[in-house]
């Protein structure tokens, strides 16, 4: 499904900092992956590199057999990569219906749009024509963001901290959504710190010190995950 080869990302912040260093991994089709790690370890950076929002300094990315390293975000999206932002964007004037229509390529019916909103726990009648502006709470906006990714129906979906800002009752529902969305042709990559998402994962990937420190099933990874919380030492190039 998705293959990362030797991905390196260096941030320019008061000098150069190596955020991701030689990340290689193969994501199989039909699996639910959770990427975790301490704050600032580069999880969201890796997600954005896969989506083409950030460029890696070195390395290659393959979607199936096709190299997508040089493709931009639009091209990757059109090839079937979906992305839900950690902090969804607000739009004055655009409604939830507009966003879902764009997500589906303009093919969505009102009934389908309502269904996607219902799936993420929003009353469609109340939210369908709401503007995505500051009248919505962060949690409401987050659920609409997730609905927009579901509406795309992509074979590869990346969710960056989907639990952030979502209440516990709605979150339990989201865990079920991620499980149900998986099939042999669909892969989810979820950036998360949330134990319930760990438990639902087929595989957990732990990033520390810019590398994949550990990966495996929840049973393999979770007992050994303690001790990685504070080890995210950012490597400074040139000392």
């Amino acid at each position: 499904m998705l293959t990362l080869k030797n991905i390196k990302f260096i941030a320019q912040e008061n000098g150069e900092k190596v955020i991701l260093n030689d990340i290689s991994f193969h994501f199989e089709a039909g699996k639910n992956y959770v990427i975790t790690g301490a704050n600032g370890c580069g999880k969201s950076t890796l997600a954005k590199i896969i989506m083409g929002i950030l460029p890696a300094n070195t390395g290659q990315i393959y979607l199936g057999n096709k190299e997508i390293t040089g493709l931009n975000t639009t091209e990757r999206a059109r090839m079937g990569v979906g992305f839900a932002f950690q902090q969804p964007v607000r739009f004055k004037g655009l409604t939830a219906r507009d966003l879902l229509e764009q997500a589906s390529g303009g093919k969505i019916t009102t009934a389908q749009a309502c269904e996607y909103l219902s799936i993420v726990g929003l009353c469609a009648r109340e939210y369908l024509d709401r503007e995505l502006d500051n009248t919505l709470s962060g949690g409401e906006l987050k659920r609409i963001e997730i609905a927009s990714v579901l509406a795309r129906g992509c074979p590869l979906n990346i969710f960056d901290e989907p639990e952030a800002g979502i209440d516990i009752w709605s979150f339990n529902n989201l865990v079920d959504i991620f499980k149900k969305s998986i099939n042999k042709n669909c892969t989810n990559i979820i950036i998360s710190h949330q134990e319930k998402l760990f438990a639902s994962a087929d595989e957990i990937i732990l990033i520390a010190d810019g590398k994949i420190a550990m990966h495996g099933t929840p049973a393999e990874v979770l007992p050994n995950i303690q001790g990685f919380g504070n080890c995210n030492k950012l490597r400074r190039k040139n000392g």
Partner: protein
Amino acid sequence: MDKIDSELLAQIAGLHDVPQGAYNIRKNGKSIGRASAQGIEIESKTDVSGINIRIADGVQNQSVHIPVIVTAEGLNDLVYNDFYIGKNCDVLIVAGCGIHNNSEATSGHDGIHTFYVGENSRVKYVEKHLGIGSATAEKILNPTTVLHLEKGAQVIMETVQLVGVSRSVRKTEADLADDASLDIRESILTDNDQFAATDFVVQLNGKSSRANVISRSVAKGTSKQIFNSVVDGNNACFGHIECDAIVMDKAQVASTPALRNTSVDANLTHEAAIGKIAGEQIVKLQTLGLTQEEAEQVIIKGFLK
């Protein structure tokens, strides 16, 4: 009417045929079609060019269409339309002006509309402006709207200027009595070297009167826009001004919302923002498969909707 007339009428007033209800269609300074309706009388003024529209007390769910089209090259049309709306009415009034000009001469329209809205009446007033024809031909529109709202009257005023108007200066004045409310929603798009200025002055004179002045505009190319808005709180009232502008290319926008009070019980607020399309908005739409250009179009269309 020819093909150009039909196109203009369709775009400014949504008319594809003779409208139901009362109407007056003005072309090149003259009425080319008029009908009154039960409770709604339209008559020509005798002193100046224009019409009086008189709506009787209690007229409900009726509409009045008074579009203006200018297709004669070099014509500068000036019209005075006065609306006398009785008590307890609920009406839709659709105005607007479309200009077609392919010549080097300037074509223009100055529409001066005065509304007297009776007690507890509800009016939705929609005014769209459009210019078509040669991009270099001058098409000038200067609308003036004066609104007098009696006790409990409500007016929703939607003004739209989206395409092709070279220069426009819009002036709107309103005074509100007790419990009256006014919602103004303005949408403007300018491009190339176009210029648009709007000037709102709202007097909240009545107790519990309310006004919302909301302007959304997009300025492209080297166009310039000026937005001035003043809300005066002269009683226990609520007033809010909101002006958001997206600027692109080398366009410029000057926005000046102003609040003044003569009553300590007035509650007046404003917010204003000028800026480019946010980069993260474009990126979000790119993750849905849109190109940058497509994303910008979707954002602008939604913003001005």
